[in-house]
């Protein structure tokens, strides 16, 4: 696929992130270029601390790079004002967090509704919960759900907005083998049927097989990018 200017969905140019901890600077992400096309399913692989979450956060517009620019559909996030960046997050990004981040005082259903209310045309809350297999736990509070169930609420929350871009940080980290596969299948499906671009972070190298492209990170650098012309069906993944 040859990137042309209007099909360029996400473009990172020389994006770097450095944290200062006292006198010491931590290069969470070294200067990086990356392009993601609309409709792609991208998996980021790398050991703990390699900068995966950092990169994902920068793409999602919830963190800003120390240098370089992140463009979404040719619009530079770093040039946006607070309202525009909020609008970007609201309309364009669905986030699944490594640590779920459910609102503890809202039930599963309410957590999803909480997000659905932000957009004009959300998916039906119950059917999304159904999709992630949680319809019968809809009225439970997060503290009454297992880790995997919380994870699934988090996924439902991301999907309910029908975002063009889905960012998932370890979406299967807390799930059993079967549920994990089910979720991956779900993500592949929304990617295929609704054309949602998916960027998923994982430790699990087997997951890389189902992606269109796999990006390998190590110590804040992209070490290699594999293109996968024949992604494996998630049902057939083994780990």
């Amino acid at each position, binding site marked *: 696929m040859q990137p042309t200017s209007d099909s360029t969905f996400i473009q990172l140019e020389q994006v770097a992130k450095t944290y200062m901890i006292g006198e010491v600077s931590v290069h969470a992400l070294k200067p990086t270029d990356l392009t993601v096309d609309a409709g792609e399913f991208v998996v980021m692989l790398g050991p703990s601390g390699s900068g995966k979450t950092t990169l994902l*956060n920068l793409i*999602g*517009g*919830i*963190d*800003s790079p120390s240098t370089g620019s992140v463009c979404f559909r040719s619009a530079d996030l770093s040039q946006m004002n*607070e*309202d525009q960046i*909020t*609008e*970007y*997050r*609201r*309309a364009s*990004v*669905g*986030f699944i*967090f490594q*640590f*779920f*981040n*459910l*609102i*503890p*005082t*809202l039930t599963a259903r*309410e957590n999803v*509704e*909480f*997000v659905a*209310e*932000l*957009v004009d045309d959300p998916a039906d809350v119950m059917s999304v919960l159904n999709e992630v297999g949680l319809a019968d736990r809809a009225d439970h509070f*997060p*503290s009454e759900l297992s*880790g995997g169930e919380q994870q699934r609420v988090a996924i439902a*929350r991301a999907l309910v*907005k029908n975002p063009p871009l889905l960012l998932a940080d370890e979406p299967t980290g807390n799930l059993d083998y079967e549920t994990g596969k089910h979720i991956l299948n779900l993500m592949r499906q929304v990617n295929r049927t609704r054309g949602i671009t998916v960027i998923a972070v994982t430790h699990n190298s087997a997951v890389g097989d189902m992606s269109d492209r796999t990006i390998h990170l190590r110590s804040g650098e992209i070490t290699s990018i594999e293109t996968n012309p024949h992604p494996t069906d998630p049902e057939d993944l083994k780990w």
Partner: protein
Amino acid sequence: MVIRKLDLKLLRDVRFSPWLFLGIVLLVMSGITLFDASYISYNSLAASYQLTYQKLNMADFTVDLQSAPQDVVKRIQRIPGVKQVDGRVTEDLTVEQRLATKRVIGRIISIPDAGLPSINTLHIVNGTLPGRGNKRELLLENSFAKFNGYKPGDFIYPIVGDDEVRYRVSGIVMSPEYMWVVASTDDPMPQPKQFGVMFMRKEMADRLFGTDGSVNQVAVTIMPGANRSRIMRQAADILSPYGADDPIPMQKQAGYEVLQRDLRGFRTLATLFPMLFLAIAALSIYNLLGRMIYSQRAQIGFMRSVGYGRRAVLRHYILFAALTGLLGSAIGTVLGYYLAFEITGFYATIVSIPFTEVTPRWGIMAAGIGISLLTAVLAGLVPSLSASRMTPAEAIRTEAPSVGRAPAIENLIPRLKKASFVWRLPMRNLLRAPKRTFSTIMGIASAITLIMVSAGLMDSGKAMINFYFDRMLRYDAMVTFIHPQSQGDLGRIRTWKGVQRVEPLLQVPVKLVHNGREMVTSISGIESNTQLLALSAYDGTRISVPRTGIATGGDLMKRLGLCLGQKVILTVPHRIISDAASIPVSDAEVNGSRIGKYRDQVFSLSRGIQDITFKKQVVVTTQTYEPIGNRLVMSIHELRRLFGQEFDLPPNAISAIMVKVAPGYVKEVSRDLYNLTGAASVVDVQDMRQQIDQAMSVSNAFESVMFGFAIALAFIVIFNSTMLNILERTREIASLRALGVTRLQISSMLTIENLCTWLAGTVIGLPVGRLLAHGFVSQYNSETFHFRSAVFPRTYVMTVTTIFLTVLVSQIPGILRLFNLNLAKATKELSE
């Protein structure tokens, strides 16, 4: 109605951390209750006075004269702008009350022969008006009657000549001039054991005083909008041939002025204290909201990353603050209004206010709600703003493991290193979350400050009275004579059984003039080796009576801009009393030839027929601390030398005798003092102290209310922060429990932690509180009461232990909750 999920979260936050919400609501509530209660009471009192002045047609001004024909009233009436004029006779004389077997100074004021006076009219509480003609009946002023237990039908005995004349009390009344019953402005304490007001038909008063066809006081009301000072001037011109004093405008009338002074003090307290209160509440709200927001940072990060804007986050937390403000002030307003009723009602029982008016003051209530909303919102603004400004990626990371290091104290006290972790963990915890520690310490410090300020007000009041009675008035009884007399009785009294020491006192009324400012007071002449009327400096050290010149209270000097070594002018206010002894008791006509004589403080209450004015210059040589009043002191010899001639004083004149009595003899000696010829009144210091205590009971009650609130607020503030301190760490503590740490160890650790913050808060709070108390007390000073700010040692002890216990008690619910924790559930929750 569909609630937006963001607002639903708000309500759920309330439901899931009710302590936090209720804590803030209680803070706001008590602040507003206090504000509304005190301010509405202040306003109600002011309105009740005004209503009384209006309903009872209080004179716009009065003029005291020696004597004028009754017709003079008609001439005043013709002054343009005058509405009504009333002429009356008023005299002070000694009254025997067989009830309480004590003599008092009675001020007799005439009322018309029929009906009630048109000006300064009376409100009948009980009984009827006096009968006409020969009926020996009179009306008693309410607080005097109440204090001495008079009811209609009882008898009272004015002393005329050497005879007691029996009068029947026909009714009990309240008067606009004597809601606060004081004889004069410079004697601001009501002393119902020494002074009472009585009203008598003019025809009866004329018989008693021989004032037929004449008046010695004129009361005037003016038309709305008329120029009072012009009318006063014109009235003074008309009356000056009759020995008129300067007209006294309503504002200078003793009862009025003292009430207004009192009201001003009330207002100061009613505004400043709630302000302090709300400021501390605001600080606490700021802390609590800050902590709540901090604990919700992951949620905030999430909200922002899914597309909730800054404003939505800001609005969310501001709304929480506003909700607490609204609910708190709603309850507070209702409670405050109710309390205002109680306070005003209580006040009305102390002061004789015939018409009280407590109405909901919408303006004040709206202001209260506005202030509390503003306080809550402003206090919530800073943490809410910082919440909305968090970088989502930053906020969303779970609470970054904070710096864990051995605190310096462990290096300083090597033994701590070897101590069990029950000792070491609390120290580390305190230093690990310095913000939280700081906010808890501030909570405790402000609670202490608040208690110290309100206790400081009470202590200073008590210290003032203690100083007055313990350091200054060292005598047990004082007899005051109708006329100044020579020292004759002195030696005799000394030989009485139980009498330990006797000293003379000469007191003359003067007007002090300096820098164009003047003030009516009296000079006390005492012996230079006095032991019964001690002079003291502000620090309490004894000061001897100056050989020359006068000793003056430092507060008076400050007010008049007077320095040591400066000269002041003393003039004598023309207040002379008729010689009561020369008035026949019979109904016979009286010739007008009464002899004018100056009397001591007693006759300074009244006026007579002679007019002498003169000026003397004296040097202020000594500065003293006069806690109550503005008395001047000089050596008795000097005083006799200075004024002896003008006052026509006998050689070695005295006007009173102070007596120190052995315990158990006071009553007996007092009775004998009454029976001395020429004795006008006897002051029993113990009695006097009681009366002053009673007069102070209004402000005492008010201060107690403040104090109660301070304790309540202290409790809420500490309770909140301690509770939160524990709840915030539910997960962490649950993990410890899961690891096998015992309940006892956990509660010991928390207790040690809380006691450390208690200690730090105490160390900060005590000096700050002392300082603020000082500021408040100086605000409360008045012309009459000169407080030095004092905080008793027992107050320190009480404050520190109260707070200590509060800290201990307020951790109980939190610890109990931890004990009953579902460990599995708690360790799973990300944050509380």
